[in-house]
């Protein structure tokens, strides 16, 4: 990207090329249409300028033309829609083998927590060729995680998780922007996405000293007393959480929900909102008692319980995605 007059952003993720291809297609169609209209208006305006003695010819209109220039553009636009929707669907469907990174946004900084325990502020190190899934939430207002070089953007909301995934392709430093206006230093709420080669990244990640995120979560799970009810040995007052993540849960009122990150999060903050069938609504709320970071650690811990016990490693990542979704992705 030219530093003097950039006309095209860097391409540094797998989706960048896809978005650019669609963008070029749209530019071509729009360019042709604009040229046609400009050309037609100019030519007609000159050719039929007022000449003494020549009168305008009244033409009522033409239903065939009207139908034609309604339907043809519509079908052209339909190609925009389909192509755009396909890209969007891919962008919103993280691959099963994604490495997860928790993101907490606040006025005006980005905090990142790697599963390995590393924490970063306004800087995110990732390696090329790895699918990264960001699980993001905000501590205050709405922010938006925007990396132009990846062609990706997702608003980050208070009170729930939103996710975003990418696979970086080219090592380098890329802009991270907050794209949703968030107050005084909105324009200062940026950072660096540092894409590294796998070798450099391995070195970097090994340099950390903090315990992995689910370990922090595990400790919290016992210090907050969760383990007294959610037991793994016998049926406690709360459901056994092993293997819960990303599985359907039957609720008391007959509904079934998928226990995704937002469900786990809600169950900690708002335990009575969705009661699991067969259990009593006795769990107190932890709203205000745990910080966003602690919440992330707890969610990461509950999710780690979904992994099958070691020894069945071949199925390592299977539960992370429902069969229906796998099918959908194959269709892609």
């Amino acid at each position, binding site marked *: 990207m030219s530093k003097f007059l950039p006309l095209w952003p860097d391409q540094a993720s797998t989706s960048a090329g896809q978005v650019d291809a669609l963008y070029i297609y749209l530019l071509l169609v729009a360019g042709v249409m604009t040229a046609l209209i400009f050309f037609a208006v100019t030519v007609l305006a000159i050719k039929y300028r007022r000449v003494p003695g020549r009168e305008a010819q009244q033409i009522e209109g033409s239903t065939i033309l009207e139908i034609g220039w309604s339907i043809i553009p519509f079908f052209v636009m339909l190609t925009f829609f389909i192509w755009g929707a396909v890209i969007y669907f891919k962008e919103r469907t993280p691959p099963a083998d994604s490495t997860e990174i928790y993101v907490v946004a606040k006025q005006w900084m980005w905090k990142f927590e790697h599963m390995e325990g590393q924490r970063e502020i306004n800087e995110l190190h990732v390696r090329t060729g790895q699918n990264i899934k960001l699980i993001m939430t905000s501590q205050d207002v709405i922010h938006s995680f925007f990396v132009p070089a990846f062609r990706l953007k997702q608003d980050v909301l208070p009170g729930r998780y939103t996710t975003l995934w990418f696979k970086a392709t080219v090592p380098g430093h890329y802009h991270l922007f907050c794209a949703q206006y968030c107050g005084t230093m909105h324009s200062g709420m940026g950072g660096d996405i540092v894409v590294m080669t796998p070798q450099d990244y391995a070195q970097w990640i090994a340099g950390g000293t903090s315990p992995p995120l689910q370990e922090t979560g595990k400790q919290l799970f016992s210090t907050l007393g969760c383990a007294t009810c959610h037991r793994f040995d016998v049926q406690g007052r709360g459901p056994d959480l092993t293997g819960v993540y990303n599985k359907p849960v039957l609720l008391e*009122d007959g509904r079934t929900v998928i226990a995704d990150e937002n469900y786990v999060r809600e169950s900690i*903050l*708002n*335990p*009575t*909102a969705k009661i699991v069938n067969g259990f009593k*609504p006795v769990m107190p*709320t932890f709203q205000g008692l745990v910080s966003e970071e602690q919440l992330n650690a707890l969610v990461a811990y509950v999710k780690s319980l979904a992994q099958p016990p070691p020894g069945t490693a071949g199925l390592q990542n299977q539960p992370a995605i429902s069969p229906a979704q796998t099918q959908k992705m194959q269709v892609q």
Partner: protein
Amino acid sequence: MEHAVHNPALLHHFADAQQQKDAASLGMWLFLVTEIMFFGGMFCAYLVYRLAHFNAFAAGSQQLSIALGATNTAVLIISSVTVVLAVKAAEAGRRKVLVGYLVVTVLLGMTFLAVKGFEYREKFEKHHIPGPTFKFTNTFDDNGKQIPVNPKEAELFFSLYFAMTGMHALHMIIGCGLFSVLAVLAWKGHYSPGYFTPIENAGLYWHLVDIIWIYLFPLLYLISRHS
């Protein structure tokens, strides 16, 4: 203008009284549509949140008094009848009957507001007013079954309760004021069988406010009352 001599209420820019009346009626109906959309925003919020926080909404709802809510519904329905009879009286040119119905309507409207005020006071005493003082302890429904809820979610229910009933009450206050003025004007003989558009239009407004309450009552008061 010659026709102005015949009918002092006819404004100059209209061709005849019928055109003026039709214009006023259409204008009023359009205004009612804006009211539907105005309350519609809150109904939309209510539906979205009721789906997301059903238990809390049920628990919040059970803190409301069905007896008072039903009484108010009845009061409003009766007032709608008196309004429609007022319009009929105006059409027949029965001035005293018209004034009578208008006064009764205002009194019924005030009854509604008084009951509402009584309910609000109860909410205040129970600390059900959203804000820093809000308290909501896990409660039991009519059948003794415990409904534990996150007080925060219940606060959301009461936020909507106050927003919706408050906005409705504001419309009732405006309606009462409107009918009071009309009663005075009717007493002074401003309306005739040939011209009673203000009575008709105020009546339409009152009926719409009634309809909004007809929806508010089951939505707010009657969630999950059975065991």
